[in-house]
């Protein structure tokens, strides 16, 4: 440990930058897809049909109750057998992370829907708005706005969970870091640098989230 040499990090900057880009790309795609999926699941949980509600609840319980790593392995090892198609590491990662994001985001939508007070429903009824009008113009927009801070912090969780996909050989920042440490036999320098990269991005984004949250909280008070 007497001779730490951080120049090795600079030497592999291209590989690390590529890995970081893949991590961000993966998180970005799965955040968008997962948010749409989560909204859909939250709607299913409000459904009139009991079977739909139960299916949605089961989905959320399983995806949140089991480690994401298992979801990933399940998609990577089992799904191709069941469907009879090849699913490479990239697509396995996309599917698993989207499923995870969908589950946690549906909970965000659900709690923001619940947070809208009875008085908003009363006002709509007193104004004689039809149920569809009420949902579409009054309740849903408010639920969406209120869910934003929560969804953004889900994005941070997703960014952190995206390191797992290195376990199925998806080349992103974590995978790159481990490969470089193995080649150079300098795990301390590489892993510390990568930890700092994750920290800077994660911390910066959480700072953005809290300032967005403050603004939204001021806006949604009636």
């Amino acid at each position, binding site marked *: 440990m007497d001779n730490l040499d951080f120049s090795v990090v600079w030497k592999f900057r291209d590989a690390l930058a590529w890995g970081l880009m893949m991590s961000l790309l993966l998180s970005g795609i799965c955040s968008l897809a997962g948010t749409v999926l989560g909204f859909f699941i939250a709607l299913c949980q409000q459904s009139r049909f009991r079977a739909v509600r139960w299916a949605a609840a089961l989905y959320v319980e399983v995806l949140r*109750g089991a480690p994401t*790593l298992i979801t990933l392995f399940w998609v990577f090892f*089992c799904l191709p*057998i069941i469907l009879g198609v090849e699913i490479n590491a990239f697509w396995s990662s996309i599917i698993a992370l989207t499923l995870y994001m969908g589950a946690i985001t549906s909970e965000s939508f659900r709690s923001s829907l619940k947070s809208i007070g009875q008085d908003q429903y009363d006002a709509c009824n007193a104004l004689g708005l039809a149920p569809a009008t009420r949902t579409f113009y009054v309740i849903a927009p408010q639920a969406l706005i209120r869910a934003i801070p929560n969804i953004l912090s889900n994005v941070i969780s997703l*960014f952190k969970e995206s*390191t797992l996909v290195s376990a199925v050989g998806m080349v992103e920042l974590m995978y790159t870091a481990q490969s470089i440490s193995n080649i150079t036999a300098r795990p*301390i320098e590489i892993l*510390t640098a990568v930890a700092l990269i994750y*920290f800077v991005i994660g*911390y910066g984004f959480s700072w953005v989230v809290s300032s967005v949250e403050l603004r939204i909280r001021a806006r949604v008070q009636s």
Partner: protein
Amino acid sequence: MQNLDYFFIIQAWPLFLKGLWVTLYLTFWANVAGLIGGALLALCTTGPYRLLSAPAKLYIEFFRCTPALVQIVWFFFCVPILFDVFWSPIFMGVVILGMNLSAFNAEAFRAAIQTIPRAHVDAAVALGLTPFERTAYVIMPQALRYAIPVLITNGIGLFQQTSLVALVGVDELMYNGRLISTSTYRPIETYTFLVLFYLAVSIPIGRLAAFIEARSDRALKA
């Protein structure tokens, strides 16, 4: 699609159980460490001493904003080299998972301490309690009640995080599951069974947390 065959599970049963035992062992001791560490960190951050609060805040932010996998890999690769210590993998797992959980629990405690009405602290001062007595008899008992649902949720989160140490070679449930899957060529049965194992622990405890939260919401309304 191959025929599903759950019979092999009986043969694999001992390996599953051994893995489950290690997973529960990791979860239990990391939770013990995380509760103590979290409470201490929270007292440091809410206390008046900058010398304690600044490093505690940095610690919390660092562990919250970096992926758990990065922390685990860093710890397993770098600590033995840096400090020339060679602990058992399970003990290493307990330490790093406990350090991770401490950061999240510290946030739960801090948030709980801040929801205690200012008037209670004022009342304690007016009654002539010393700062230590205020903390021990007025602040912490209340904070603990507010924090319990979040602490349980964090504990379940940690239970799921234990699967990550499989990636650095600790033979817990996930690791043994992979072993069984590759040696029997039965990924669907193995991973489905693994999911059930994790759900069997996390769903009941999650329900318990929701129940306690609903009950203490009512109790604290007074």
